[in-house]
């Protein structure tokens, strides 16, 4: 408990300093609970998510960093490895391949990488996965782009 708190506090300070470096990630800690974080990540360029800003919710366990944080998309996203309804993410480093050397910041980077490189063979969103698996890249891209426009872009844009 104490260890996770101390570590999160270190991450908090690091995030404050790093803000200028990674313009694609904005990590914010809940004002009253250091175990709750949200992140805004920019959709990677040259993907159907380009131009969108996606909100992630982090729930950090007390055993952190020995256990991975729970992360899910709050913003609706059409992606093979993200559950369309719950926003749950299927990513190895958030499960078996977790290492305590990961930080919330680097988890965000991993999620951005996942957005750019979907793994259709372990789908949480079967429709999205099937499109890619059947080779219909255009179909996948247009669906993903549509949801990016609908959910991840400000109405003005």
């Amino acid at each position, binding site marked *: 408990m104490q260890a996770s708190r*101390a570590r999160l506090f270190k991450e908090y300070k690091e995030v404050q*300093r790093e803000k*200028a470096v990674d313009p694609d990630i904005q990590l914010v800690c809940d004002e009253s609970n250091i175990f709750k974080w949200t992140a805004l990540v920019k959709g990677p360029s040259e993907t159907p998510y380009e131009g969108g800003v996606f909100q992630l919710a982090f729930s950090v366990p007390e055993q952190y960093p*020995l256990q991975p944080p729970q992360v899910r998309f709050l913003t609706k996203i059409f992606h093979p490895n993200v559950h369309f309804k719950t926003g749950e993410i299927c990513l190895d480093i958030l499960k078996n391949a977790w*290492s*305590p*050397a990961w930080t919330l910041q680097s988890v965000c980077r991993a999620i951005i990488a996942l957005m750019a490189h979907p793994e259709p063979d372990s789908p949480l969103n079967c429709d999205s996965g099937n499109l890619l698996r059947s080779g219909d890249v255009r179909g996948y891209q247009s669906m993903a782009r549509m949801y990016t426009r609908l959910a991840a872009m400000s109405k003005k844009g």
Partner: protein
Amino acid sequence: MEDDAAIGVSDHVSSESNLEDSSCCCPICLGPFIQLSYLDKCFHKFCFNCILRWTNVVAGKHRSLPSSVKCPLCKTENVSIVYGGEGSSFQRHYVNKDFEDSFILSRAHRYRLQCYYTDQGLLDDIFNISQYWRSRKYTQPNCWLESWLRREIQALIQEKDVDIIMHHILGVVKAALWTRKEQKSHMNSPEKKQEEFKMSVSEAARRFLAAKTDRFVYEIQLFLASGMNIEAYDAVYIQRLGWSSPGINTEVSHSALVDRTTVIPYLYIFDGDSDENE
């Protein structure tokens, strides 16, 4: 304005790279190292407690104890955590205790290691090294030398598999003593022969035994000069030093026992520097 931004960024980058090459803090707690320790293969650094707790988490996920743990930074499989490195010694915590048990020093090994912490020359009146050289006894092969060397090296470097080192040193010893350059070496004085022997053996052994090399070369000569087998030789040594023997607990003067067993035979770091220290 642009200049300012550039400076700001490079500042951030350097502080970040500091964090990433983990020279300043433990990658698990992100704090300064507490009881600095290393993984034994990749040598990544962690707080001892941090990496130990992670190791236990990993072990908890397996039905049977794994023999290794992946480094959180580079995924290299490591079998032990090296910690407590102060001065010339360090300790190891094995991921799998069974693995550690595969080689623990036997009492005879520990005993031999303790001998290296006594003053040299305690048995000189029993086994006369210079007599050994002068009388050219060295020309007679010694069939126990191989086993004796193996145990000695195992004790000194605390590894089970020392065959390569043992054969290397044995080869050098044999070459120095028993090769047929007799015509030539007969003309050499025994002193010269002894010097040659000490030189070539210590040269062969130093990279493995470091600071213990000179004593090791002396102990080889002592063993050879004894002309005894290992059991008999140990018995004489034990009798002289008055320690409890490897096998039997005998009544010994307590002060001697306490004095001489205070040295805990940790693993010794063999680096170039330690050569000069002794």
